[in-house]
């Protein structure tokens, strides 16, 4: 089966986000951008499925700035994806719009499995995979820590609030990745060089004729109330005293 992996270009997780002084958003000028960490896990899982013979082809797709061509889509192909699709836009596309574009891509590509990240670390929406599943009428295995594919069954172990849950899905299906699904490989320099010759298709949202107009307007973005460092206690006795004062110890 073919596996489609949507990936998102986000502020690198090591960079501390700074809110712009005018309250319009987070400053993304001249900061390091990388692939959303959950999406690296998604690619790794897809590539492993191919290495095991369960998948035939791994296709990655991103919706975002054209620069993704030379960073995240290159990394994705270096990690083992066979080809890439760039749907270039400078506009912010919300999860619903992203899901509609991805549905159009699925209609064309007919994947047996789509593996997404469970959330993007910038907007933290945790929506896109579930929305795509709804639009396609496919089953969803979200927050996956284990994925097993056999024939048209996809068995997914999910990380849920109380522990783990396992569901059995009928392909075609949607999976979203949690952190413990696997440890993604690095894109090595030789593989990055080779990846440059792997196919990349360039599209724009207009090619898919879907409504991606935003529904949400961001009125302002502010920094949360700051905590300040408190006091240091000298020893355990002093800490016990503090706990008693807080009323949590007798």
């Amino acid at each position: 089966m073919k596996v489609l992996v949507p990936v998102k270009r986000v502020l690198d997780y090591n960079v501390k986000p700074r809110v712009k002084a005018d309250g319009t958003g987070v400053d993304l000028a001249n900061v390091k951008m990388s692939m959303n960490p959950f999406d690296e896990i998604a690619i790794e899982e897809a590539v492993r499925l191919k290495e095991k013979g369960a998948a035939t082809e791994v296709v990655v797709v991103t919706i975002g700035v054209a620069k993704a061509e030379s960073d995240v889509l290159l990394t994705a192909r270096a990690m083992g994806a066979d080809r890439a699709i760039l749907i270039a836009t400078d506009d912010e596309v919300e999860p619903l719009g992203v899901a509609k574009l991805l549905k159009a891509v699925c209609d064309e590509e007919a994947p047996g499995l789509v593996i997404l990240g469970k959330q993007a670390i910038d907007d933290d929406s945790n929506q896109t995979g579930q929305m795509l599943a709804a639009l396609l009428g496919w089953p969803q295995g979200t927050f996956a820590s284990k994925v097993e594919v056999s024939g048209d069954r996809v068995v997914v172990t999910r990380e849920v609030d109380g522990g783990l849950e396992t569901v059995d899905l009928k392909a075609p299906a949607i999976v979203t990745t949690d952190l413990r699904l696997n440890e993604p490989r690095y894109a090595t320099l030789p593989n990055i060089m080779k990846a440059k010759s792997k196919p990349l298709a360039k599209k724009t949202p207009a090619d898919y004729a879907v409504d991606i107009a935003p529904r949400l307007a961001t009125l302002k973005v502010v920094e949360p109330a700051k905590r300040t460092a408190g006091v240091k206690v000298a020893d355990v006795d002093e800490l016990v005293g503090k706990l008693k004062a807080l009323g949590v110890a007798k």
Partner: protein
Amino acid sequence: MKTLVWVEHDNAAVKDATLAVVTAASQLGEVHLLVAGSGCKAVADQAAKIEGVGKVHLADDASLSHALAENVAPLIVGLMADHDAVLFPATSNGKNIAPRVAALLDVMQISDILSVEGADTFTRPIYAGNAIATVRTSDKKLVITVRGTAFAKAATSGGSGTVEAVSGAADAGVSKFVSAEIAKSERPELTSAKVIVSGGRALQNSENFHSLIEPLADKLGAAVGASRAAVDAGYVPNDYQVGQTGKIVAPEVYIAIGISGAIQHLAGMKDSKTIIAINKDEDAPIFQVADIGLVGDLFKVVPELTGKL
């Protein structure tokens, strides 16, 4: 506005996470509930007593027993003909089902709200809580997930809702529940505990985690949490993880032991009332947010602390 709250439950009792959602919904208008499950009449009766609740829709069907999003979402979409907003707790179930409902309604979901600013305006955290966005929706119907720590819990008594059966539940036939490994614990639940003791990578192994963190937690009647590093290393199961991608907690007192204070961890606990940190490195970032810090070796400090309590 008429709102519908999806009730989190285990077919036996209403889960606490629901109560904060009822509070958020009541700020928008009239509150109706949906109890979808199997053999869950008792849950609906209990839910009807929650303060401020009007109608309780009860959908009792075998296909709903495990809250599979494929089966629950169409049911909610049907009920939305008569409701203006549907709200879910930002729990793993809520986050699984809500976007599926939103897409079927062609609505952009508003995730993890912290406050209701108006009928169409909400605040929500982005970038692991490093920024708070105020967003306004232009959608006719609202689909919202609610951060439990940001709203007071509605009282579990005083309400006099009426229970009404809803029909139309069906198995979509594309997914099946296989099994669950749900940890049973005598300790309080992480997301509702007053005190939390969390351990990090510094514990080195599962034995140390159990022999050092748990006795301290039990002395304080606390829930036990962990950093991602401790979970990844297998000291404790995944449901202990606190942070951007784990659980969001805001207890009265949060005690971080051998946790450095990475932004992804802080995202899950920095709204705690009092933060206490024990770390051997006096420059650890956790001390920048801690109200009370103790610089020391946890292998010495923690047993001493447990002994003196």
